């Protein structure tokens, strides 16, 4: 039976995301706010993604790339992640692994994140919910622009 869990702060969100990324065998897709992407980088999640890519997996991500996030985006691209830029994303932030496990959170822009910052996230391996997030990711992916293009603009 599918499992569900409510995540209550950034610390738990990072822990859950880290586990999801580690367990992935084929593909990770994510949509994160720039602040969240930077925070994830600080806590070593891109290294875990890199290991997946080295084993032949694929990692695709979408974020809003602005002047202040160039280093993070370059690091992710250098790791082999395919990153795209979206200007005005209205939706949920998410990390989905192998189309079977996900963590998502309502998109409330929190400028200053700390481990104790309260957020409400949702982890589940419910297939219907994961499929829904995955479909949303693909729709956003098709509308997003390649990170390199955005980096050149900046």
């Amino acid at each position: 039976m599918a499992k569900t869990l409510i995540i209550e702060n950034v610390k738990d969100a990072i822990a859950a995301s880290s586990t999801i990324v580690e367990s992935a065998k084929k593909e990770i897709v994510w949509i994160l706010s720039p602040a969240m992407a930077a925070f994830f980088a600080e806590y070593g999640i891109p290294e875990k993604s890199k290991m997946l890519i080295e084993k032949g997996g694929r990692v695709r991500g979408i974020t809003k790339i602005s002047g202040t996030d160039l280093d993070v985006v370059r690091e992710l691209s250098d790791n082999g992640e395919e990153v795209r830029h979206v200007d005005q994303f209205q939706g949920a932030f998410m990390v989905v692994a192998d189309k079977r496990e996900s963590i998502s959170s309502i998109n409330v822009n929190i400028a200053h994140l700390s481990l104790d910052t309260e957020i409400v996230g949702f982890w589940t391996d419910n297939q219907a919910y994961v499929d829904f997030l995955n479909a949303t990711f693909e729709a956003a992916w098709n509308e997003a622009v390649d990170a390199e293009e955005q980096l050149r603009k900046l």
Partner: protein
Amino acid sequence: MDNEAAFITRLTGFGLNEKEAKLYIRLLKYGPKTAGPLAKPLGTYRTDVHRTLTSLIEKGMVRPSLDSPMVYAAVDLDAALDSVVKKWGIELREMEARKRELQKFANQQQFRPSEKVPTFKILKNIKEIVSTAGPEILSSEEETVWVLPPSWLKSGSLFGLRDAEKQLIAKGGRVRGVTDVTYSSIELVQEALDVGGEIRHFDNYSGVYFRVFDKKCCISAINIDIKHSKLDEPASMLYTDDATCAMYHMSTFEMLWKQSVPAAQRIKELLEERPRTLYE
């Protein structure tokens, strides 16, 4: 539908199949017959007629003669129907006896009651959203909460969700909503306030839009952009009665509720900044 067709329909409702019903009516209308002459008018073969006659005999609706060749006569309609009812009565009593035996057996075992399996479904247009949300609001006993963009308030108003909310409030329920109140949405927000809803304003909200019904089920949208308030307007939302998912949205709602300001205050501020006449 002519009389004979209506008669056949009613007989099938009485447990006969269509072939049995047609054959029985034929015998009622034209009197006793051997199997052979019945095949042609019924558009079938003699063997099939024999099969159908045997079934009707078992049901007590046709009686065979002792002559050779055998002649078949329809049993008088009242008597035939009584016979069917009696047959069902016997079966019903047998089923009830079996049910009691099974209940007795179940009481001796330690069966675990089945856990409720949550359901998920994708709603693909405004019509599906409205036809899902409306009944959920009406069947709510305590509260429905929502976070919606102003454009959705219009759809809610046009397609009866506001009325459903009004009914919920009238029976003592509560409706709380969070939206980004702008000049152009003042009237729609005012309408939601007028029916008794508690509405708050969240500045530049850019998150997921959702509704939660009685903390039990919810509808949520991800990356959605509705341009027109018409029923076949495409949308993509997820409905679920998964309690954890509903609680997740509920917790998010409470977080947003705390961070927002009363809509009435926001409307006042907007009108003070830019009087309505100027806006109009």
